[in-house]
């Protein structure tokens, strides 16, 4: 059966009272971005429903795209049928047949917004239900828990049939909750944190600390590729700020006792991230930290590292188990990139036995012998900002393809 439209139900945005209009507009924008390569598809948005009219575009591909748009609770492919009982009967039969698997149950849910149609809801129920039962052997009715719920919506211009309810990605439309900076290391966790932040309606910009020659070009590429994945999920461009971090890391190495070097390094990173955040007019910093996962993510470490700023630090993964994080990384297709075996800034300088319970006054004391501020200012000034788009990157190799 050929669908001609897709009906979209909103998620939590439905509850947003007066802000509703803004949320619907953000969602419309997200859907439009997701369907950019289907120019004939038209979006019609109203207060509580959105329709994508396919106009001949490939419905199956569009369904795949919609599954990833945040702010959609569920959606249903639907077909338009002529207002005629006989056509309705045969279309409903074809439609249910194409979904029916042996032994399944069904029910008919009619809705008649146009009362001039010859059958009332009860009539539709009996006529169509009876017709289906007669023609599909083995089909049974179950009004409470049907496998197939055939929705028939009679409207002025036509009748619409749908029976699949495809779960959407949930969450809120990207950007509807403002902007935050994501600290992106190249590991498994931080891209997942970025994904969850976007899902909750945040627009993100990524920050990566780059320490050549301790970390290689390829570890930077890895982060570019991860950002590209996030940009694909977003459907639009994401900024990636690359911070030259070598001199700070060296200074920390020289100035701070080994068991506190990791704690101090994190404090420097957070200070730099906060400076970039101010420049970019964002209101929070997102990290991939998960409580107790490594030495820098103990409660004591967070207490000590977090001292350098009072900007909200959002930690979407804080209470999650590693296995669940990995599961999401796999689903959003970042796991494979994160697993590439290149050293990044977090792995290469890890001391043999970092403090798991660092103390504020200790680290303050160690840092007091050296003024890190000029180095931090220099690093912020020398940030290289890349704009990562979901489309094909212009690569030096394009002529070969």
């Amino acid at each position, binding site marked *: 059966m050929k669908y001609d439209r897709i009906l979209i139900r909103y998620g939590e945005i439905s509850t947003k009272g007066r802000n509703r209009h803004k949320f619907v507009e953000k969602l419309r924008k997200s859907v439009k971005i997701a369907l950019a390569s289907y120019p004939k598809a038209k979006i019609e948005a109203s207060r509580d429903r959105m329709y994508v009219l396919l106009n001949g575009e490939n419905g199956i*591909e569009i369904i795949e795209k919609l599954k990833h748009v945040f702010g959609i609770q569920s959606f249903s492919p639907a077909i338009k049928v002529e207002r005629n009982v006989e056509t309705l009967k045969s279309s409903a039969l074809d439609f249910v047949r194409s979904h029916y698997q042996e032994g399944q149950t069904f029910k008919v849910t009619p809705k008649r917004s146009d009362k001039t149609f010859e059958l009332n809801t009860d009539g539709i129920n009996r006529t169509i239900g009876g017709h289906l039962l007669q023609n599909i052997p083995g089909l049974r009715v179950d009004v409470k828990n049907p496998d197939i719920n055939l929705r028939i919506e009679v409207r002025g211009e036509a009748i619409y049939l749908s029976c699949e309810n495809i779960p959407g990605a949930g969450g809120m439309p990207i950007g509807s909750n403002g902007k935050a900076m994501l600290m992106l290391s190249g590991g498994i966790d931080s891209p997942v944190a970025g994904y969850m932040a976007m899902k909750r309606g945040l627009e993100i910009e990524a920050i990566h600390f780059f320490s050549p020659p301790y970390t290689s*070009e*390829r570890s930077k590429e890895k982060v570019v*590729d991860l950002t590209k994945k996030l940009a694909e999920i977003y459907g639009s461009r994401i900024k990636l700020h690359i911070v030259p971090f070598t001199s700070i890391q060296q200074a920390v190495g020289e100035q701070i006792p080994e068991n506190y070097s990791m704690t101090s390094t994190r404090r420097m990173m957070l200070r730099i991230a906060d400076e970039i955040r101010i420049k970019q007019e964002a209101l929070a910093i997102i990290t991939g930290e998960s409580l107790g996962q490594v030495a820098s993510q103990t409660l004591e470490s967070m207490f000590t590292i977090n001292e350098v700023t009072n900007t909200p630090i959002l930690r979407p993964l804080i209470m999650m188990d590693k296995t669940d994080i990995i599961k999401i990384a796999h689903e959003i*297709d970042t796991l*494979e990139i994160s697993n590439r075996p290149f050293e990044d800034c977090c792995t290469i300088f890890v001391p043999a036995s970092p403090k798991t319970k660092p103390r504020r006054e200790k680290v303050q004391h160690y840092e007091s012998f050296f003024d890190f501020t000029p180095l931090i200012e220099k690093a912020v000034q020398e940030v290289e900002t890349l704009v990562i788009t979901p489309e094909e990157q212009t*690569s030096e*190799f394009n002529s070969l*393809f």
Partner: protein
Amino acid sequence: MIYFDNSATTKPYKEVLESFITVSSNYFGNPSSLHGIGGQAERLLTQAREQVASLLKVKPSEVYFTSGGTESNNMAIKGAALLNRKKGNHIITSSIEHASVLAVMEQLAGEGFDITYLPVDQDGRVSVDDVEKAIRKETILVSIMQVNNEVGTIQPISEIGDMLKRYSSILFHVDSVQAVGKVPLSLYANKVDFCSFSAHKFHGLKGTGVLYVREGVRLLPLLSGGNQERKMRSGTENVAGFVAMAKALRMTLEKSKQGITDMRKIQTSLRKGLADIEGVRIHTPLEGTAPHIVNFSIEGIKSEVFIHALEQEEVFVSTTSACSSKKKSPSKTLLSMGVPDKLADSSIRISLTFDNTEAEASAVITAIKKYANQLRKVMK
């Protein structure tokens, strides 16, 4: 020279060869090496995968590079059968598949699998009902080609895919080696789990191909080693070959937009020309066929003799599929369609590509006419 044997292989595009040479000489690194030269090779490989994926309208993670159609078919069928043998041992295929499917099935039969070879009708087409009737609870895999390589019949892939949606545990493999660029197929819409492609059939290089594996579907790898291709196919990647393949696929699909219509016209002219020649029987059905293949017999003239006769005019066609033409047995596809042995012995296949012209087609018809008359006198 008129080359009308494009189903056997195609001439690599000049641009494709240039890419191959540039990558081989300038970016020769091993994608697994840590240094920058390895990095370049890896980026090329990634870009090749992304391009192939976007042209096939699938995800890059669903594209596995292989050495060609034979490997892709082996990897899909053996990989799926061996991994799922605890679930069942029954596989459904057709009697007109390519040797790299049929021989795999025979091998699996020797390992305890039960294979159903479905018959085809007189047009060389499998029926969806037959596929469904053959399904049992032990069935784990259905493997059907998209376009038959000998006569060009299009198989009802989307109908079979639709039907298989009701049997979610059965995997579906499609051999699209002959179809790509000529008969479009939406892999997602048709519930295809595995799909095989070969680059040298679309002006890429021999020794390169693709197996599409739907996300979430697993296979037992045939080649173990350094865990390349996400552990599914070990062995240092043929980066230059895959870059060349990505380019060949792009060029082919670009040409196919107008090319299919033009090719269909040439096919129609060939059919008309052949129909006028005495003793010619056309095996390629009129409806539901790929635009690039015309298979026919000239009564009483052995195909091999006729191939060599045409060669004197610098016209190159083939007897049956290139892979089995040296076996000297009549075409399995034609026999399955009910063509008598003797007529099948005389079968000739013409296969086109987008660069072929009407002028070439009429020259070939003239040559066929000439030799058909000459040879018939002698052979009688």
